[in-house]
Structure formats: C-alpha cells, structure tokens
C-alpha cells in the first residue's frame, strides 16, 4: 500500500547528492514502496534541503531488518565516541 506515513526531523549536517555536497536541513523517514530496492516495502530516508528544491535529496531504501541494524550501529557509534567530542 501507499502509506504516506512520514516522520520528519530537522537535521544539521551535509549530504552528497547528484550535484555534489549540500547543506541538510531536514530528513524524512517513512515505510513505503521503494523506487529501486527489490522489496514490497522498505524503510526510506530522504535527506533534504527544502530551500534548494526537490532535487537536493539523498535517498536510501532499506529493508526493515537492515534499517534496525543501522539505527543500532548509529547509537552504538555515538555511545562509544570519546568523551568530549560530542
């Protein structure tokens, strides 16, 4: 189905899109049909800069299992960063 369910989060950082690096302002997270991944539904993340239009976008489509693994890896990496760096 087309879920439209979307979580939005403001982010600070940069992403590399088709036209090179750009400043990120927002990320959207949703579970829906992928464009490319060979699965019925995937966890999709779009890293965006609204001010630069729809093409300022870095997209990933992950299986639910790999998305959970990625989230855990992000948390683990941040938790193990040396004190004082975060």
């Amino acid at each position, binding site marked *: *189905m*087309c879920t439209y369910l979307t979580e939005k989060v403001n982010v600070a950082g940069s992403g590399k899109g088709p036209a090179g690096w750009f400043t990120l302002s927002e990320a959207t997270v949703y579970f829906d049909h992928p464009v490319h991944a060979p699965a019925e539904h995937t966890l999709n993340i779009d890293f965006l800069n609204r001010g630069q239009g*729809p*093409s300022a976008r870095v997209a990933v489509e992950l299986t639910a299992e790999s998305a959970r693994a990625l989230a855990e890896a992000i948390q683990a990496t941040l938790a193990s960063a040396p004190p004082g760096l975060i």
Partner: protein
Amino acid sequence: MYDAIQAETISLAGAGGDQIEAYLARPLGPGPFGGVVVIHHMPGYDEQTKEITRTFAAHGYNAVCPNLYWREAPGASPDDAAATARAAGGVPDERLVGDVGGAVAYLRAMPNSNGKAGTIGYCSGGRQSFLAAVSLPLDAAVDCYGAFVVGRPPEGMPLKVGPIVDRTPDLSCPLLGLFGAEDSHPSPEQVAELEKALVEAGKTFEFHSYEDAGHGFFAVDRPSYRPEAANDGWQKIWDFYGRYLAS
C-alpha cells in the same frame, strides 16, 4: 495496418489554468481515436507509467499522462518529485479533478479524437480515476487497486484524503475495477462495499479480483508484479475501452 505512434512531453492547462507538464502518446493513423488519461501511481510520473501511456497509443488510443507533481517539483526526477509530494500529504482532490479535466479537454480537442475520453489510474491513481469519474463527464473509467474510495487512511497517516464511495450516484460513466484479492488497501471487503454502492446506484460496472495478487500487480518493475493477473487485466482493459471509448 499502419501502427506508428508518436510520444512526447507537452504542456496542458490543468487546475486553475496552470500549465503543467504531461506525456502524450498518440497513434499517427487517421483515427478517429478515443482518449485515455493515465493517472500515475504515487511513485510518480515515472518511466513505467510513460510506457503504459505508450501502450495505449499502440492499441489505438490517444493517451496523456499529466505530471500531478509538477507544481511541487517542476523538472525534478520522478522519485525526487514523489518524495516531495508524499511529504506534503499527496495531491489535493480538487486539484486532481482540475488536472484530469484539463487532460480530458486536451484529448477531446485533438484533431484525430472521436470525442470520447476515459481515465485509468493505478494505486493512489485508482482512487483518483474514480474521483474524476464522479466529478467530470467521462465515457469510461478504470480503477486499478485504488485505496480509500472506501474507508479512511489508518490513524496517524498524514494522507489528506477521505472516502468518496458516497459519491457513487454521481458516477458519469461505466467503471472497470481491477483488484488483487491479497490487497489490504483496498481490502476485499472494501471492494465489496464499493460494488454494493454501484449496484444500489444502478451503475454500469464490472469488477475483477485476482487471486495470488496484491497491490500493484501491474507494476512490471516491482516485486508486486503478477504476470497472470496483469496479462488478464490488460485484456479486460482492451475489452472495456473497446466497448466504451473506441470508435
């Protein structure tokens, strides 16, 4: 039989008179030909939908697919445009009717037109095909697994659409519905409810639900593709449009 077709990007007047991008495919024979508005699925105005549009031309119909996301994302790639549109909650119903109405007017004004025009839509476009058919004077409409003609989006889903089954008495043309028995949006129960409303309103329609098929069984580039259902579905479309749209 002369079977050349021409396909190209055009501009047409949509809702509010806005010029929007569209993809037109037409037979180059003398005609006259019926017209089909192809309403793209939620992933957008993509290569596969353009291929569907060309398929209608190859079968003797003028076909036009308006880019429903043109206003949010002019010139963007289809996946980027779809991401922007979905984040905004989808296409407003009123604007959809205006855009499809503009596409219908374009088709009927073509020199090789027989004056007839219909719609077909997939996924979110299936609901939009029904919406167009209860809002505009059409000659035929096809709903391919459109969700939320019956029923509302689940709680927490920011999709800004509601059920439109109550508008069934306004249906202006025969309706062909093609569904997957394993689909949950629309579910077999929701398809049955729409069927009941059509019977009660005395409308001309035919529904086909395919076993072993779910949502998106026509989509050849997706794992949901079911060749048996899709092949039979195409035959049903040619038969239906042959009766109501062809010369």
